[in-house]
């Protein structure tokens, strides 16, 4: 059963990803991204990581897609919903192939160990996040803060030029 679900969700994830790249309409691309991200949440559920699945739905399925749509709607893309060919596509292709190479090399050289499915208790997750993994956690939030401030500065400097 979970095998069947895995196949289904993988198809949804990959199909959604393909849709993002292939569609010519920006809003449709955002929707395909939503399909892909929610299917990943489903994959987490199969792995019994329900907290992670819910976080995926909350942050990626909800907040990030909404902000994405917000940005698309605020720019004048509503008047030009079609994307023309992006001139950076060879670069993107190289990056994607490189990532594929690195990942497949990693998977081939280090076989995935068979692990037992177990669902970490929610309290235990929080405990380890704030004790053992506190510093990576803080670094991640710092990076997000930097990105936020950077976005504000870029937006403001554009305003002054006008």
């Amino acid at each position, binding site marked *: *059963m*979970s095998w069947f*679900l895995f196949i289904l969700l993988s198809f949804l994830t990959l199909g959604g990803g393909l849709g993002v790249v292939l569609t010519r309409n920006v*809003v*449709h691309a955002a*929707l395909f991204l*939503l399909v892909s991200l929610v299917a990943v949440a489903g994959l987490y*559920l*199969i792995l*019994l990581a*329900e*907290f992670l*699945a*819910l*976080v995926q*739905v*909350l942050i990626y*399925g*909800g*907040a990030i*897609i*909404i*902000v994405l*749509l*917000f940005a698309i*709607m*605020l720019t004048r893309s*509503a008047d030009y919903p079609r994307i023309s060919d992006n001139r950076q596509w060879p670069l993107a292709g190289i990056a994607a192939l490189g990532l594929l190479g690195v990942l497949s090399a990693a998977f081939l050289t280090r076989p995935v160990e068979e692990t037992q499915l177990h*669902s970490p208790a*929610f309290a235990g997750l929080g405990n380890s996040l704030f004790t053992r993994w506190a510093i990576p956690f803080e670094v991640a939030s710092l990076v997000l803060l930097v990105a936020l401030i950077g976005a504000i500065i870029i937006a403001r400097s554009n305003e002054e030029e006008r």
Partner: protein
Amino acid sequence: MILSIPILAVSLTAVFWTLAGLLAMFTALSVVVLSLTWLERKVLGRLQRRLGPTRTGPMGLMQPIADAVKLLLKEDIVPSSSEKAIFWLAPVLVVIPAFMIWVTIPASHDAVLQNLDLGLFYITAIAVVGILGLVLAGWGSANKYGTLGGLRAAAQLISYEIPIIMVVIAVAMLAQTLNLRDIVDQQDPYPYALVQPLGLLIFFIAGLAEVGRTPFDIYFAESEIVGGPFVEYSGAHWSVFFLAEYINTFAIAALTVLLFLGGWSGPLLSGNWVVIWFLVKVYAVILVVFWIRGTFPRLRIDQLMGFAWKVMVPMSFLTIVITAVYQFYLWPPWSLTLMSSAGLVVVAYVIYRRMVGPANLVADVRARQHAQAQERALQAKANDPARGAAANAE
């Protein structure tokens, strides 16, 4: 582990019972929505010294059914310039999360479809997806007002999502669990409304904003953007949005009751009859929602966003901080009540200032006009003898 997936590994009878439970939930929610539309029209009517619906059935009780039939029989218009797929998808994206969150909202200890360990977090996570439907509805209908409404919905709902999540975290810290049933059990001696009144206020206000009730109905404000995301929808499609709005209102009221008002606990009743207490409390909260709708004017968009980021977000962080201090130092419960009430006073003062602000402004302008008029009269008096003297000289 309740959310675990192997559904088909269970027997057919279990599947049957799940389906029966879902069907019961849909039926119950539909009845609730019918009752809410009737109640809202009646209560608003009374607040405005009208009678509300009276003609269909005794006390207008059949009015919601007449409305439903009317809505379903109306022509369903799809604008030719709209994005068809998105136009169809948007109402579905709004209504499915609205129903999905009810899977884990308990009406009594046993009257719950599936009690999840992460229930509260599940509700928060699923509810966010509904916002997406509103944004897409606005964009998909290819209408200026629709797009504006969609943008407003995104801005408003994401902003008010933050205080809600923060207050939910504070409640989870108090109860040490995200399981709604356990949270209610934890409120045995005192409901959290007494322990954390600031949390209750923030949750209720942000909840109103989250379901777009007046005074926060900015994103479909009829007098500004003629219905916002719903402007191009009619008939059955529009009624789906309507259904979702009422189910969400009921959900916010139910969550307020579960998180802060002690859920189904109450005197006299026991066993499964405690559902009555739950319903009584939820409908009481709903009446407050209608009361607010009848008495408050709509906010402006800048006031709305300012209130979210300058009052609600800092105050919700304060809620977390005082709860953490209380939990860490093991202070007595009344100390948290005291700290929380202090925060409550601040919020209440800000709202009071906002409310009396326009009235004060009017009074101020009147006073200034009056003073100017007096000054002019004095000057005229002072000038008059001079003018008289000049006239005499001629």
